[in-house]
């Protein structure tokens, strides 16, 4: 306990001192890193015991008190001369910040996500390196750590992130989906065309078909759930009616904003369903099935784009795209990017699906041992159809976000994106053999990739070297994961 108090005090002190360090030097960052080391080495072993003994809030406060004292002392002692004084708001602000930091500590420390040790360590090291190496802007601020840059990174990783979440589901079943990049591009093309020239028949027909197909399927499922004892011809008839209504209204009056937003995911999901059917029913190798789908979708995208124009710009205004579409590229409070929020929401939903539902367990089971899963009654075919459809749907959604972000749609936009998504999944520790992995890991993989790109960019490393570094990152991550590269201190059991 004494050690804890001392360590916390020291940490708070260093923290405050670090804040006062001149911005041009690395002193502040080094001090902050020391802070963390000091705090954790003293505090961590106690965190769990304290939480069990004092409960969530009190153990948190127990952590906060010496930290706050240390921060105040550090601030005062680091003043350059005796005449200078510190404003009360500064002290209060820092104390508050430190309290906020410390109170959740004992709780957060017990989350199982931290067990993914080495990946988080890599991310943390990368962040610290980014902070230390970061250039300064005109006013001397640290560019990498600026809130704006962090928001930029969140936006930049969002596309790859959404694709990677879908890819994680597929890879968990032991498959792979190479079609996500071109499906994304197809989605952007369809969205752009539906928003700009609503009369284009080929695009409208394609999206109507996709939307009606899913409406049909979902209506059948819904009716079966609502009217379990209805005669067998009832659900399809009802579904057909709904479908016909939707189809005729779409074809007669154009898609509208909602139709434009839904079409790309629906089309994507349809492509995913097709790959899934080839894999699950046709027992094709996932690599081959989705490679074929990737090429087909690229061609379909070019067809829908038309031959005289490959890039379809989106302009806002009357008779053009509605202003509401801009929301998808907005930054809330001029800061938080909407695509980033979509990414985080998608990741959270996927994590819930995997960890809290029977479907999630089925996905792991199919990837772990397909034969055993089949024998124990897991619906293998349906599970595979589901994951490929979701993967396609997310790719379509990414296409909508692409169209919004870059105000254009084009069928060649997603070239190589599937490889980025697979790389993020692999770095995140999901095994390409299936059955092992998590969305949390993928999240870390995506962030690792995004931050690395951001840091290299800020260092103005030329792009050829960036590619080499990224390749090395993938190799290193996989070696670490396969246990080939033993970092002794990480392997020591707790």
């Amino acid at each position: 306990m004494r050690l804890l108090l001392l360590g916390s005090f020291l940490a708070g002190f260093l923290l405050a001192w670090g804040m006062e360090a001149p911005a041009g030097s690395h002193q502040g960052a080094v001090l902050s890193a020391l802070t963390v080391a000091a705090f954790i080495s003293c505090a961590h072993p106690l965190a769990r015991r304290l939480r069990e003994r004092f409960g969530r809030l009190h153990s948190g406060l127990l952590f906060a008190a010496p930290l706050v004292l240390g921060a105040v002392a550090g601030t005062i002692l680091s003043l350059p001369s005796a005449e200078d004084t510190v404003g009360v708001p500064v002290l209060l602000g820092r104390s508050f910040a430190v309290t906020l930091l410390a109170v959740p500590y004992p709780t957060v420390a017990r989350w199982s996500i931290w067990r993914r040790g080495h990946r988080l360590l890599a991310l943390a090291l990368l962040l610290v390196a980014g902070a230390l190496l970061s250039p300064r802007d005109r006013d001397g601020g640290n560019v990498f750590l600026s809130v704006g840059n962090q928001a930029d990174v969140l936006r930049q990783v969002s596309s790859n992130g959404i694709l990677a979440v879908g890819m994680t589901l597929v890879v968990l079943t032991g498959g792979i989906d190479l079609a996500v990049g071109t499906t994304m591009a197809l989605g952007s093309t369809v969205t752009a065309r539906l928003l700009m020239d609503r009369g284009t028949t080929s695009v409208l027909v394609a999206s109507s078909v996709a939307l009606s197909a899913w409406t049909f399927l979902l209506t059948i499922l819904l009716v079966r759930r609502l009217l379990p004892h209805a005669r067998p011809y009832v659900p399809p008839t009802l579904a057909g009616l709904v479908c016909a209504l939707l189809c005729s209204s779409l074809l007669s009056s154009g898609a509208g904003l909602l139709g434009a937003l839904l079409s790309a995911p629906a089309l994507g999901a349809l492509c995913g369903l097709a790959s899934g059917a080839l894999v699950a029913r046709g027992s094709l190798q996932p690599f081959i099935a989705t490679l074929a789908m990737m090429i087909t979708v690229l061609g379909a995208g070019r067809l829908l784009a038309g031959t005289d124009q490959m890039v379809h710009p989106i302009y806002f205004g009357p008779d053009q795209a509605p202003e509401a579409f801009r929301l998808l590229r907005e930054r809330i409070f001029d800061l938080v990017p909407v695509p980033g929020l979509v990414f985080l929401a998608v990741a959270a939903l996927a994590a819930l699906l995997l960890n809290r539902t029977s479907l999630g367990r089925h996905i792991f089971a199919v990837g772990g041992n397909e034969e055993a899963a089949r024998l124990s009654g897991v619906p293998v075919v349906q599970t595979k159809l589901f994951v490929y459809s979701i993967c396609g749907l997310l790719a379509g959604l990414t296409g909508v976000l692409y169209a919004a972000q870059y105000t254009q749609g084009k069928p060649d936009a997603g070239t190589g994106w599937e490889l980025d998504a697979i790389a993020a999944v692999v770095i995140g520790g999901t095994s390409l053999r299936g059955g092992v992995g998590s969305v949390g890991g993928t999240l870390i993989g995506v962030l690792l990739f995004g931050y690395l790109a951001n840091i290299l960019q800020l260092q103005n490393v030329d792009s050829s070297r960036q590619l080499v570094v990224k390749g090395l990152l993938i190799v290193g991550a996989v070696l670490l994961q396969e246990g080939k590269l033993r970092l002794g201190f990480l392997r020591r059991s707790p």
Partner: protein
Amino acid sequence: MRLSLPHVPGLLLPFALLPLSLLPACGKGSPGKRKSVVAFSQCTTTEPWRVLFNRELKREAEKHADEFDLVVADAEDRTDRQVEQVENFIRQKVDVLLVSPKESPGLTPVVERAIDAGIPVLVLDRNVATERVTAFIGGDNREIGRAAGGFAVDHLGGLGKATGKVIEIWGGMASTPAQERHLGFRDYVAKEPGIEILLDNQDGDWKQDRGYSIMETALKAFPRIDLVYAHNDPMAYGAYLAAKDAGRDKGIAFVGIDAIPEEGGLWVKKGWLTATFVYATPGVEAIRQATKLLQGETVPETTTLPTRAVTRETVDAFLAAAGVGSK
């Protein structure tokens, strides 16, 4: 008191970030002392013309090395990457931003953001769809087409009396530069009753091998061809090779566009092409204008780069100026 090691990195994360992020807010650095930064986002560097563009830009920037640092980023032909780069430059609060966009609609919003952030933006070669950029610098393909047309008419006998059979090899059929290079050429050639255009709209897709195969077919179909006009040098060179393989290169003039020293320039020097027309890169002009902006001067809204002919008479001076020795 044993520390469970796998937990450590995770715990590091939230704590490492927050105190660090407080740093910039209390920066006591000395603003204003930093050297100015001119940042340039190039859409791709795999095409020879883009490589030349970067080279000219860097060479010009070296002359001003004590005034500003030049930072060049390559977007690898991807719109999303280029937007990322421009966002990064905005965060770094660079003093002047140069952008040569991959596509107009994709880059327009982020260029507007840079302008909102108070950074002067010079758009190079391809424009973006906003009026708000500080300046645009680029070539005029129609003017270049006209220059080539004028040369063709002169070569075939002069205004009003030119006669001959001409083949035109297009760049990408749907691309704007190809359209403009075609229209400019027609501005001259269509007025000459003596000139006959053989083959309609042959798409060579800017590629040397396609130029070769188009010419190969044409040589079989037409016993007499006087001049080949291709929308870029590699296609003209491909056509030359086809004619040479057929043993008919002597009587035919080959005219290309772009005049990249290592390509068109060298081919003219060797006597393979008759003429090529400079599609100037905005590199040098961009740095000159950036320097002016840094000194607080204004720059013209639009700068159109002039073209000039590279023929057997002028090629030595052209290559010497570009620093390319004859091999």
